[in-house]
């Protein structure tokens, strides 16, 4: 049987429609893997840096230890804007039906918050103590339709340097 020119057109059309309908799934799959890798990497750096900064604590307290005298005090700020990936957003639509904790969203905000605190500390590496540390989260855009939904996490505190005894 001779192949008809119509067959080719039909085959092409089918191929195109399959491609067209699979694009959203491909994007989801791509988002799932890249998002997962990015999160793993980010948590690795967070853990490492948190260990490094462990000796210089950030507290919500306002009072200094009695035995110290202060050399200087300055306001320090750290912030980060985060957004969720497409896969997590896709999952969250199901979560909206059943209710309960949205784990995929909490991990994003958790990453953002720890990153903000680390950036705050990194902006003043010679401090001895961070007093009155405040955290604030605000959603910049809700992400309706095609608009990007993202939230800003801000950490600020007063960085205090103690007077060193003269040797």
């Amino acid at each position, binding site marked *: 049987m001779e192949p008809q020119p119509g067959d080719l057109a039909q085959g092409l059309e089918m191929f195109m429609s399959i491609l067209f309908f699979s694009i959203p799934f491909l*994007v989801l799959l*791509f*988002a799932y893997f*890249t*998002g997962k890798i*990015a*999160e793993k990497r*980010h948590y690795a750096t967070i853990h490492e840096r948190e260990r490094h900064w462990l000796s210089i604590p950030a507290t919500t307290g*306002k009072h*200094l230890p009695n035995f110290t*005298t*202060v*050399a*200087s*005090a*300055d*306001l320090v*700020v750290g*912030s*980060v*804007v*985060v*957004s*969720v*990936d*497409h896969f*997590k957003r896709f999952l969250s639509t199901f979560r909206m039906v059943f209710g309960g904790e949205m784990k995929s969203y909490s991990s*994003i905000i958790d*990453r*953002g918050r720890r*990153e903000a605190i680390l950036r705050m500390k990194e902006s003043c590496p010679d401090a001895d103590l961070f*007093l*009155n540390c*405040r955290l*604030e989260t*605000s*959603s*910049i*855009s*809700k992400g*309706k339709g*095609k*608009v*990007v*939904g*993202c939230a*800003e996490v*801000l950490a*600020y*505190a*007063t960085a*205090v340097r103690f007077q060193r005894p003269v040797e």
Partner: protein
Amino acid sequence: MTLTNLESIPGQSIVEHYGLVQGSTIRAKHVGRDLMAGLKNIVGGELKGYTELMREARQQATDRMVEQAGELGANAIINVRFTTTSVSQGAAEMLAYGTAVRCQ
């Protein structure tokens, strides 16, 4: 100008209060950044362009607050607070406020 978010300045004493000072700015994100953020959004994680934008805006709000305190003759601002509000879709207000004081 010394800024702190404590109620006093560690190591110094306050001699005069000048009252509340504030600085604010409303920023919109521009189309180019929005497009890049849209692409980044598939993957998720940090949106660096927006972080930069918010940092600039916060710096400007702080500068305005400091300027206002300077006009009053203060040399420090205590109890500084920051707030961010999304005013409309794609625009955010950044507010910094505190109490202007003179310290010694």
